[in-house]
Structures are given as C-alpha cells and as structure tokens.
C-alpha cells in the first residue's frame, strides 16, 4: 500500500467534508455554493459506511478473515448511541414520560430495564459504543480462532451471528424498540440534531474519525505485527512452525476492527435519525464486503473509495430504478471478482493487480 495514496485519501475525506460543511453553514441559501442539508447528511452516511468498509478490509484484506457479519458490530455501536439519544429526549416524547421512552410506555413497561441505566450519561454511552462490539468480538473470536475455525466455516458463523442478533433485536421483549428500533431523537451532547450546524458538525466529526481510523489501520498493517498478519493470511501453518500464535494475531485485529465498526455505527445513527434491527440483516454485511472488493481488498484506501462509490451509485440507482438495485449490486460483485481482482485501486496501479494480494504464479525458471 502506498503512503501517498493514503495521504491523498485523508486529504480528500477531510477536505471534502470540510468544504461541504462550510457550503452548508456559511453560504446563504440560494447561493451557487450553498450545500443543502440532505447532501451533508448523505455524505456523512457514506463516510460512516467507509468506516465499516475499512474495518472489514482490516480483517479480510490483511488477516484473511472473511467476516460476513461485520455490520453487526456497526449496528451494536449504533444501538449504544441510539440508547443515549433516546434518553436525551426526556419529556419531549409523544407520551411526555421523563423516564421511559415512548415505545416502553406503549408496551406498558413499568420501569426502565436495568441495561438502560447509565445511558443518560454521554461518557457512559461512549464507553459502551466501544465496549459492546469489542467484547462480543473478543468472545466470538476467542472461541472461533482458538478452535482454528477459518475460511468458509468462519464466514458462515459470522453470518449466523448477525442473523441471530437480527432476530433477537426484532423481539419487543428485548426492550430495544423491537422492529421499530430507536428513533425520534432530539439532541446530542446538547446540540439539536435537526440544526444545520449540528449536521455539518457531525459530518466533519465523521471525517476526522475516519481519518484517525485510517491512520491507526495503516500503523497496524505496516508494523511488524502487520507483517505477521499478512503471513498468517497467506501461510498460516508456516507462522505456527515459526513460533507465532495466529489465533492471538487474528483475535487482536478482529476486536480492533469490531470497535472501529462500532464507532462508525455510533456516528451513523444521529445522522440517519434511526436505528432498527434491519441494520443486522445479513445483506448489509455482505454489501460491506462488496464495497471492499470493488475498491480493492487489502489497500485501506480502496475500502473508502468502494464504500463511497457503491453507495453513491446506490443512491442514484434506487432513485431511478429501485427494483433493479440488488441485481446491479450482484452484477457488480461478479464483474469485479472476474475482471478486476484488485478492485478499482488495482486498476489504477500500473500492474492492474491488487498490491500485495495476488500471490505470484510459480516462477517460470
């Protein structure tokens, strides 16, 4: 991965978000440079997806763990943030109950379930955003990697994990809003979510988090740890005979990736205004893998490019021909896999193949 392309990507993400925010807040409506608020929120959404994509790329591109359930960590981070936002509504809900959110009043809850306690405190909510996806990834990864579950079997269990969470969160008894999820948010850290300035601020914050995430990911994959990780991806048994424990390496990167995905989800919820169990649907996780494949697996920058481009395409396409979008997505995945194994970034690099990914054919000597 080239340092230059990652620096360019950081510049584009921060600069783009900054320009959109300025265009939205500082330019008067009617000016040619004015950016409408919906465009700001849309860009914020794309950057949150880019955070999920970078998280997927970290485990899939560098450790060879094809997680088909990564959106679960994204959604868990989102729910943790959503619970905080629900508690901020206070008496402004439809039923005006200071303690219970609307859906609990509707479902005849008498008191706040124990796991909702603490979420009125922003610091507690932020810790939960990191902790909930992280601990789930730790437990899941510890069990899976220690038993040497890998390849397609691991992909299937991650898929089962997100599906199980989908079913669990759909239940009203879960106390998290059932199939309606959490919505109707009013403000965050004291800022009104409907205000243009808050929207623009969230976009800039997302861009900064994405940039930090990219820098952390670059540090990890270029460190000696990252070299071992790539060795594990390509030749796991060899690393074992060298004295490394691949399960420890996979577990670390899996937890780190889950936490990153959770932060993405936590930034996603206030910008979208809702979190519901649909975010756990297996299709979401598969889509995030497609973004990475389209952009270029194992490149970090490719994940950002793929997430933004595919979602931009999705916005356009679902506006014009909504019923054909899934076919277009499937066709894109097949075409990229067959014709562009290195993704868009592979196409841009001179050899037309993924940097570091494609194993060289046996030398012709």
């Amino acid at each position, binding site marked *: 991965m080239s340092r230059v392309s990652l620096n360019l990507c950081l510049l584009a993400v921060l600069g783009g978000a900054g320009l959109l925010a300025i265009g939205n807040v500082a330019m008067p409506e009617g000016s040619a440079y004015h950016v409408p608020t919906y465009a700001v929120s849309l860009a914020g959404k794309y950057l949150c997806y880019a955070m999920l994509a970078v998280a997927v790329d970290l485990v899939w591109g560098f450790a060879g763990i094809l997680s088909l359930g990564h959106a679960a960590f994204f959604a868990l981070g989102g729910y943790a943030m959503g619970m905080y936002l629900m508690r901020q509504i206070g008496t402004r809900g439809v039923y005006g109950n200071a303690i219970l959110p609307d859906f609990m009043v509707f479902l005849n809850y008498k008191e706040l379930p124990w796991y909702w306690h603490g979420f009125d405190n922003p610091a507690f909510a932020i810790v939960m955003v990191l902790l909930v996806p992280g601990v789930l990834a730790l437990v899941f990864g510890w069990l899976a990697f220690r038993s040497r579950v890998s390849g397609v079997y691991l992909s299937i269990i991650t898929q089962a994990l997100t599906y199980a969470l989908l079913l669990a969160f759909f239940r009203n008894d879960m106390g998290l809003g059932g199939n309606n999820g959490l919505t109707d948010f009013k403000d965050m850290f004291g800022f009104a979510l409907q205000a243009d300035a808050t929207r623009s601020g969230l976009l800039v914050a997302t861009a900064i988090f994405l940039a930090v995430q990219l820098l952390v990911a670059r540090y990890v994959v270029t460190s000696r*740890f990252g*070299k*071992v990780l790539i060795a594990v991806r390509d*030749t796991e048994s*060899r690393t074992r005979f060298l*004295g490394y424990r691949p399960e420890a390496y996979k577990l670390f990167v899996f937890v780190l990736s889950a936490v990153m995905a959770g932060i993405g989800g936590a930034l996603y919820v206030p910008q979208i205004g809702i979190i519901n169990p649909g975010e756990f649907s297996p299709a979401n996780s598969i889509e995030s893998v497609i973004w990475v494949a389209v952009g270029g697996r194992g490149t970090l920058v490719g994940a950002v490019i793929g997430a933004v481009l595919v979602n931009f395409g999705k916005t356009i396409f679902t506006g014009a021909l909504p019923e054909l979008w899934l076919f277009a997505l499937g066709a894109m995945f097949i075409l990229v896999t067959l014709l562009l194994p290195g993704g868009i970034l592979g196409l841009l690099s001179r050899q037309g193949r993924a940097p*570091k990914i494609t194993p060289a054919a046996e030398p012709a000597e």
Partner: protein
Amino acid sequence: MKQHQDTLLYLDGVNVSFDGFRALNALSLVLEKGEMRAVIGPNGAGKTTMMDVITGKTRPDSGRVVFGNSTDLTKLDEPDIAALGIGRKFQKPTVFEPHSVWDNLLLALAGDRRPRFTLWARPQSEERDRIEEILLTARLAEHRHRRAGDLSHGQKQWLEIGMLLAQEPQLLLVDEPVAGMTDSETEQTAELLREINRTRSVVVVEHDMAFVRALGVKVTVLHEGSVLSEGSIDHVSDDPRVIEVYLGR
C-alpha cells in the same frame, strides 16, 4: 528408561494411524546432539508423519517423543515446540510471498512472538547484523529487497533454510530440500546443510540417493512406519531388506 547425556531427540514406540492406516508403527529413533541424520524410505513410509509428530502438528496415538533431557513434545503444540528450538522446512518451499527476503528473515528471527511486542517493535541493529549474516550464508545477499514470491524455486528453498537459521533452533528438520533443484543448486544445498550442521543438529528427509551419499552421514531407512535399517549409506544399501523394499525395485 535412562537417557543418554548426549541425546537430543528420542522417539520411543510412536504409533500414529489415520482411519485405520498405520502411518507410524512403533517407531523408535535416537538422535545425538550435533548429529546430521538422513532419513530415506519409499512413499508412504512415514517420513513426513514423523516430522509432523516431532513438530506437534500430529499427536501420536501412543509413544513418547522426548527432546533434550526430559521435555515431552507430545504434550505441546506447534508454537511451543518452535520456541523450544525445533525448526522445520517444508517439502514445498513455504515462504511469505508478499514480503521481501529481508522481511521474511526478520519475521523468522528468534525473539518475542507476542502481538503486544510485534505491534511496537522497531528494527534493532543486532537484528540487522544477524539478517546480513544469514543473507550471506543463504547466498541471498543481492536479493534482499526482492519479493520472496519472485525468487526462483532454489532461492526460495534457501530462503526457507535461512529462515530456519534465523530461528536459531537446536534441531532442524528438513523435508526434501533438493527436490526440483538443478545439479549445482543441489551441491550448494549440501554445502549449506553441512555448514549449518557445524553448530546444530539436522534431520534431512530425502529421496535423492546421490544427495544422501554426498552428505555422507548416518542413514535411517523407514518402511511402513518403522525403522527398517540404520547405518552408513554403504551399510544400508547392502542390507538385503532395504534392497527388497526400496532400492531393488
């Protein structure tokens, strides 16, 4: 049983079977410290399974594998056994293809293997010196910046042997090091192994009889999972049982 002072590796009545097929049948073998041993035998004789048992990849059904004075290898897994000082070279050259020759050796260097160390590790000058030294021994000095995947077959074999050296093992297990090599590469490999043997014990599994003869070391002939004959190459090639199962065909 009393262990001899100079015994490095001792296999005692090791049995391994896969789905009813007996890969190792009461295999017993003693390797002295500093010894180089060649292991030969027809396909399916149990050569690779023996290496799998020693390195912890396969757990034997019964029997003991003792390393050094009293360490029972059958209780340990691959990373633990590697940390004890047993290195293994695979039949097919197995190097980290996307990494440079230098990085391959860096990852193999003896040292802390835990993520919390490698995450913060910085290159040390002792590491650089050691890698330079190994590059010279493995005849790869001018290829240090090349991607390991782009090396020739023979160079990959040497890189893997170099990685074994970097691990600083007491015992090297080398599986068919000269398969697919040219004559001059084969010769250089024999020289390289003799050089390594000056400070370490080596077990070489090989098909190539000319190569085994060139090494000039004690030979163990395996057949159907146990030792058929043992001694100098001339001794085993005159053994009528060996001629019948292996050489005479």
